[in-house]
């Protein structure tokens, strides 16, 4: 088991995470089983109850900002949030590659969903779409610019979504690795640096949840706008 980084950014290279030809990210597959199998019992276990509570809170939170007509679509965003949250959270564990720190991964989620909403709107409500390109009460001479700016702000949405997530993850992991490098080199002040690392880790744990929430709720807002 050797995972010594030559370069700090090497930790975002998935190829170095093969330990004995096994990548620990595969344990995500078991996670679905752990969640799924609990539902075979009528009375929930503690873990299942925790998940249920969490889901219930999230459902309430999400359903507030969603049109009631489309409540059945909430589950897409909820599951997306859970997916990203698990990815974020488990990337904090050692020897697990952080998938969500890559645009390849984030963009494939945000762009595909956003593009589908966009095409849906363009196809079903084209007038509505075009109307929103010029905001209300904008001066006449600015209209052309406004259209351009609105278009840019529209097309930049999936990029901002994915870049927000990946930049957050990258920054967090970088700081964590920097500090752990420090711990490795200055082992005599390990207790002190561990406290700082713990604080950072708690921050990162919460960030992993919050970023997933932000990602999915923004996508949901885009979905709301497209209807």
């Amino acid at each position, binding site marked *: *088991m*050797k995972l010594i980084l030559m370069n700090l950014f090497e930790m975002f290279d998935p190829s170095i995470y093969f330990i004995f030809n096994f990548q620990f990210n595969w344990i995500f597959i078991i996670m679905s089983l752990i969640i799924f199998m609990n539902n075979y019992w009528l009375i929930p276990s503690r873990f299942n109850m925790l998940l249920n509570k969490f889901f219930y809170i999230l459902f309430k939170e999400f359903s507030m900002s969603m049109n009631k007509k489309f409540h059945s679509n909430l589950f897409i965003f909820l599951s997306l949030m859970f997916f990203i949250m698990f990815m974020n959270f488990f990337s904090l*564990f050692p*020897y697990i590659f952080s998938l969500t720190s890559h645009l390849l991964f984030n963009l494939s989620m945000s762009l595909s969903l956003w593009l589908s909403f966009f095409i849906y709107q363009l196809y079903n409500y084209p007038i509505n779409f075009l109307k929103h390109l010029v905001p209300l009460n904008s001066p006449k001479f600015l209209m052309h610019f406004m259209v351009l700016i609105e278009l840019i702000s529209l097309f930049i949405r999936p990029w901002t979504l994915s870049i927000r997530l990946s930049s957050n993850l990258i920054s967090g992991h970088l700081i964590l690795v920097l500090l*752990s490098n420090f711990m490795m080199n200055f082992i005599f002040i390990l207790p002190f640096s561990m406290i700082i690392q713990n604080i950072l880790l708690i921050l990162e744990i919460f960030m992993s949840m919050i970023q997933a929430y932000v990602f999915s709720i923004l996508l949901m807002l885009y979905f709301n706008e497209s209807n």
Partner: protein
Amino acid sequence: MLSRLSFRHIPAQLKAIAACGIQTSAVKSSSEPRPKRPIETPPVRLGFIPDEWFQFFYPKTGVTGPYVFLTTYGTYLVSKEWYVLEDEFYTGLCLLSIFLFASYKLGPKLGAYLDKEIEAVENGLNSGREESIAEHNAEIQNIEKEKWSAEGQLMIYDIKKQNVLMQLEANYRENLAIAYTEVKKILDYHSQIDGINRRIAQKHMVQWITNSVLKAITPEQEKANLLQCIKDLETLSAKA
């Protein structure tokens, strides 16, 4: 070829089981206890290591065995550089400390809260069942009461039957008395008639006899009689 060769070494009993097919093996497997989901979490040591692992070591090595094993194996891995203490190790150490802290400090509270919630769910599920049980119990009691009252009804039937019999008896006796009185009346009537008839007949007989006697008396006889009477009176007066 090889598979056939391997099959040759399988004992005859197993072959028979295999020939019988799934049914026999299914019976065999079903006799084993069904797996159950553990309701309570199994005990752990050091926050996350299952107690079973320590129990596994206990008969061979005693109490300190697993700890010694952990430390020696760890030092072996580190000293031979099978496991290199790089930055991921320290991050993992910190993460472990966070989880241990959380499980020691927040774990019991969270567990208690979740247990309460689970109990609420369980009670919610049970309440319907208990309600229906209570309903059925009430129904059973009702039926028992109905049965009891049906027994009372039988008693009432008996009493009514007795009553009817008594009434019939009374009626019969009344009828008997009526018949007796009626017959007595008739018999009295007949006896009275008989008495009257006899009296009339007697009267007639007496009348007929006196009449016929009176008719049979001739004037000479009368005269003689009268004379006899006068004579008698005279003798009587003479005597007096």
